[in-house]
């Protein structure tokens, strides 16, 4: 199977799952931004998604996207480490044109996944999971009334500045991951050329910055002393 056996096939999977996850981030970030204007509107979106079938299908696809992206990342990194050879260089150097992020995508990815676990415990397990287990008739300690009250949980966690700062650290790591990831995906998909390569890099920087600003506005808003 060339999607596993060939280097470009593996990179294709990385870029497609990556683009898919970026689309998810655009949606998630836009949705989050609403909470700054209206807690009710935000809760309406949360309730609309909830544990309804379409949201569950979306969640499952998303989970698959994440898992495939991560498994391929580990596999590619392992192969690349092996291809570098057993003996390293005594003196290494960096080139001005080489972004730091491009050489540290795995490290950034690990940071992103680490914080994502925290995020899932804080939000997903209190919201969609509670509603879903309730529907399936399972015992949960979660409060069903709060399962679609997203604004409550946002307030609950971000009023604590420690969590706000942790989320900012997470988002900065994600931002760095995206600035390389978006243009790199386009390059792998072959959409780049002498003319488009610099354009794609600019698009990548702008898009990742917009996405991260949507997300980071919330912890920053709370840190500045505002409340929703």
């Amino acid at each position, binding site marked *: 199977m*060339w999607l596993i*056996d*060939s*280097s*470009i*096939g*593996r*990179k*294709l999977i990385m870029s497609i799952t990556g683009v898919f996850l970026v689309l998810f981030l655009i949606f998630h970030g836009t949705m989050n931004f609403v909470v700054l204007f209206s807690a009710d509107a935000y809760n309406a979106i949360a309730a609309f998604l909830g544990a309804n079938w379409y949201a569950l299908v979306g969640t499952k696809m998303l989970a698959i996207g994440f898992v495939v992206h991560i498994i391929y990342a580990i596999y*590619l990194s392992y*192969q*690349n480490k*092996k*291809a*570098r*050879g*057993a*003996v*390293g*260089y*005594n*003196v*290494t*150097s960096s*080139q*001005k*044109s*080489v*972004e730091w992020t*491009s*050489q540290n*995508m795995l490290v950034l990815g690990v940071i992103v996944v680490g914080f994502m676990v925290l995020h899932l415990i804080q939000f997903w397990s209190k919201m969609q999971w509670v509603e879903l287990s309730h529907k399936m008739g399972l015992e949960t300690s979660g409060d069903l009334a709060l399962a679609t009250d997203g604004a409550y949980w946002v307030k609950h966690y971000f009023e604590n500045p420690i969590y706000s700062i942790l989320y900012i650290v997470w988002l900065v790591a994600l931002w760095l991951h995206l600035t*390389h990831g978006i*243009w*790199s995906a386009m*390059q*792998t*998909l*072959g*959409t*780049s*050329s*002498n003319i*488009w*390569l610099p354009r794609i890099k600019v698009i990548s920087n702008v898009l990742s910055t917009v996405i991260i600003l949507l997300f980071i506005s919330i912890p920053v808003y709370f840190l500045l002393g505002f409340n929703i």
Partner: protein
Amino acid sequence: MEKNINVTLKIWRQASPKVKGEFISYKMDNVPTDSSFLEMLDVLNERLLKERKEPVEFDHDCREGICGMCSLYINGHPHGKDGGTTTCQLHMRRFSNGETIVIEPFRSAAFPVIKDLRVDRSAFDKIIQSGGYVSVNTGGAQDGNAIPISKIDADEAMDAASCIGCGACVATCKNGSAMLFVAAKVSQLSLLPQGKVERAARAKAMVSKMDELGFGNCTNTGSCEAECPKSISISHIARLNREYLNAKFTD
């Protein structure tokens, strides 16, 4: 302006592929700054021969930057820190008096060390043999403009064809990937009418050979482009990706 400098060389010495290598330091006094880097190594080897010691083995041939035979990882850069030049085009005027120069072989799992600073780069030949050619003799040169080729394509093909296959891209890549080399070879042929006919089969064959030989996966860091003595652009890598994906999806 010519002057003489004293430098210390820290050179990787390894007797054969399997044995463990080590760095050995050599003091070089009164090196004329007008001499080339390889001439300086020649002087060192003359001295070692006179002292009845093993000379340092290193690859070189044309010494004018077109054959792709010289290599060397000098102070952390393949072909030294100057951009767009090969090791044989590097001169001692680029170093300062009293400097320690660390010289290592090109390293990668696919480029095993043969001896000292010489590495086996025949993996590149195997990739070329797998598809980097035009199977049919296309005859003598056509009359000018009999087959119109756009200026853009002609320039791109020419830029790609300037690849000398030295392996600096693999040596500098943190993934030991040969994508820039393969991309240059695929680009050069698929942009022109003679090579276009076999483009799909070529892209598939060369990429699969590259993977089989243990080169890594490209992660678009761009360090190959930065260190390439012929400044070949990574936009050729995008073209290779396109060629390969097109070939696979039309299967």
